[in-house]
């Protein structure tokens, strides 16, 4: 513990504090802003969930099913599973990469401290991502507690217990990885991990009752077997049901979960004391000749992008989740939410990261006979192009999978502009304060920066997609504002982002010229 506190106090100070930042957003104001952002992301979700819930909080017994529970419990199965998986899938790689990418690891290993302290310290520093799905989970739990009229305070505590469980699960998986893997195998293992989880997810989702094209009897049968899994006599033993049972304050489950946390804690400690610093990339014995490429700058950026496992992961993530969501819900809108969220978030992240590489080798670029503006352009274009492609893939899957209205393909035009904006905005923010900590997998941003960048990009992204979805719902009764948004929304956003981007490009160039 003492070791851990010391690490936390000193070893987190990787970069110099920025003396000339004008407004200090840490402290209370920072918290208020985070809370506002969190709320603006979670309250709509909570409201939607509450609306669905009010309609579906029908006791199972009244449907002729012999189980204690509500029809709505189906959602308490899908959402925790999806969001829980999402958070674990984000937390584990981001933790592991934070460990293996940090430059001080070598130094920490020479100190007489237990490896578990180093591991836990480094993991916690890497937890910043993956918090949004956890926040959503909390909201959903609270809504359920309200619907079933459980004691809210106790339910919230039980929900937090579940969050703790997820964090411990992530730490456990992370510690297993840290024990068995080297930096070079990190990529492969995390990819395998991703795909296995997704297959598992799809399999579990197939347990869901199928209502379509079935006779009432069949429907009742499938409901019966489904609720047998989530509301049966021993269902509380199944981890996938724990969230629901915890929220409804089932004592046996609370005991089980606490026990699991303790056991996992023990194994985290055990595993992480054996974690090895192995940064070998393997080595080719025979030297390959030097390939002379015609576009050296673009080639370099592409190589840097695709050799970082974190980026591959981000891309896979941004495709797979939206696709799953839209295939399950059979609605493009639920996939669109995620693709807008991921594409806009990861685009700026990627451009920032490409820029931070430049910072590490600074002033190499300045010494090369390459125009600064061109360097910026490449760093902005590549992330935007990659995520445009990601968006296109999701659209294509939706087109063939759920018969998406082809007009949606038009939304790619404002989307390109939004992603370019997000890319340049990321570059600009990094350029303004280049001495920030970029040792870990992600560039560390201040509250204000990450709020402004993720939030605006996300809103613009949604704004380019949702109006197209709204087009489908226009009829004679539609209000005029509804029609206006559906017709003009994306194009207004297109014009706005083009205008802002042009300005941002100029400021970014200036900021780069001011680098020293």
């Amino acid at each position: 513990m003492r070791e851990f506190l010391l690490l936390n106090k000193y070893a987190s100070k990787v970069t110099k504090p920025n003396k000339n930042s004008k407004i200090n957003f840490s402290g209370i104001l920072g918290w208020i802003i985070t809370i506002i952002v969190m709320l603006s992301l979670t309250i709509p979700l909570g409201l939607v969930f509450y609306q669905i819930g009010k309609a579906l909080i029908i006791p199972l017994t009244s449907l002729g099913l012999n189980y204690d529970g509500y029809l709505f419990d189906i959602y308490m199965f899908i959402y925790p599973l999806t969001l829980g998986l999402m958070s674990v899938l984000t937390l584990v790689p981001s933790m592991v990469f934070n460990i293996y990418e940090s430059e001080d690891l070598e130094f920490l290993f020479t100190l007489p401290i237990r490896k578990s302290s180093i591991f836990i310290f480094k993991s916690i520093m890497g937890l910043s991502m993956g918090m949004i799905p956890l926040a959503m989970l909390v909201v959903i739990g609270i809504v359920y507690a309200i619907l079933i009229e459980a004691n809210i305070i106790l339910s919230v505590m039980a929900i937090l217990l579940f969050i703790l469980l997820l964090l411990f699960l992530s730490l456990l998986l992370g510690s297993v990885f840290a024990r068995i893997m080297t930096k070079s195998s990190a990529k492969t293992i995390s990819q395998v991990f991703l795909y296995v989880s997704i297959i598992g997810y799809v399999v579990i989702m197939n347990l869901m009752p199928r209502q379509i094209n079935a006779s009432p009897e069949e429907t009742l049968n499938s409901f019966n077997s489904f609720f047998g899994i989530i509301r049966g006599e021993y269902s509380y033993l199944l981890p996938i049901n724990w969230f629901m049972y915890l929220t409804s304050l089932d004592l046996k489950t609370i005991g089980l979960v606490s026990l699991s946390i303790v056991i996992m804690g023990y194994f985290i400690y055990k595993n992480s004391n054996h974690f090895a610093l192995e940064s070998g990339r393997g080595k080719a014995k025979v030297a390959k000749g030097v390939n002379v490429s015609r576009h050296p700058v673009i080639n370099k950026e592409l190589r840097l992008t695709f050799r970082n496992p974190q980026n591959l992961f981000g891309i896979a993530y941004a495709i797979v989740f939206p696709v799953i969501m839209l295939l399950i819900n059979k609605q493009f809108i639920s996939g669109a939410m995620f693709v807008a969220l991921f594409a806009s978030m990861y685009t700026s992240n990627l451009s920032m990261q490409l820029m931070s590489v430049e910072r590490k080798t600074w002033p190499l670029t300045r010494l090369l006979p390459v125009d600064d503006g061109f360097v910026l352009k490449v760093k902005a274009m590549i992330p935007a192009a990659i995520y445009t492609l990601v968006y296109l893939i999701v659209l294509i899957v939706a087109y063939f999978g759920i018969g998406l209205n082809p007009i949606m393909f038009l939304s790619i035009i404002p989307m390109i502009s939004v992603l370019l904006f997000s890319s340049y905005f990321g570059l600009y923010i990094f350029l303004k304060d280049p001495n920030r900590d970029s040792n870990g997998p992600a560039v560390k941003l201040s509250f204000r920066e990450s709020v402004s960048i993720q939030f605006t990009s996300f809103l613009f992204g949604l704004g380019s997609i949702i109006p197209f979805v709204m087009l489908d719902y226009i009829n004679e009764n539609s209000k005029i504002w509804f029609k206006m948004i559906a017709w003009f929304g994306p194009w207004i956003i297109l014009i706005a982002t083009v205008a802002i981007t042009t300005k941002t490009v100029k400021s970014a160039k200036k900021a780069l010229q001011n680098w020293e």
Partner: protein
Amino acid sequence: METYVKSVDLSKRFGDYIAVNKVNLDVKQGEIYGFLGPNGAGKTTTIRMLTGTLKPSEGEVHICGLPLRDRELEIKRMIGVIPDEPKLYEGLRGNEFLDFIIGIYQLNKDDIIPKIEELSSAFGVDYLNDYIGDYSHGMKQKLMLISVLMREPKVMFLDEPTVGLDARSARLLKDLLTKTAQKGSTVFITTHVLEIAEKMCDRIGIINEGKLIAEGNLEELRLLSKEGNTSLEDLFLELTGNEDVVDIVEAL
């Protein structure tokens, strides 16, 4: 004399590449051991395995008679390491970094502060109140040296410690190391400055392509020369198979 640094068949593979190949070391208490070799020979890799930051693919390490595998924390407490590149927390001030070290090693402040003051004035370090992010390479190196020397570790591993130091500091370091060795500590040092090895080290080991190809004091090494080379430089080039420098320069 007791053996302080011992390795048996120490090897490291990176994929198929063998970076360190069955290195056997036996360095006694109070000895200054110079570890020489061309770039990429495996010096840093060996030091990393000796200090417990890298797991060997094969072989054993014993420090002060304790097996590194089982007694890692105890050993880390007794040794001091100066890595090849001083990577320090840029967001800390020099004195905060020392504070951190004091806390981690649970050192007694009353004993250690006079030592810090002594060492800082010796090295001309008057910038402990500034952020490490603003230090030059040499300034960081000095801070790192202070943080290790102040603890008076039983065994010190230094990986090219004089890189970036000015002439005065380099001289001071050499004298300090000689003095610590006289007091009974062991010093394990890698360097490309053959003059340091020649003047300071009791024994020299030469590693090439992962293998320890020669070992001994200067006299013993001279006997190894087939061509009767007497300067350490010529000897080093002969042993590592790099005598062709002269021919290359001619050809260019």
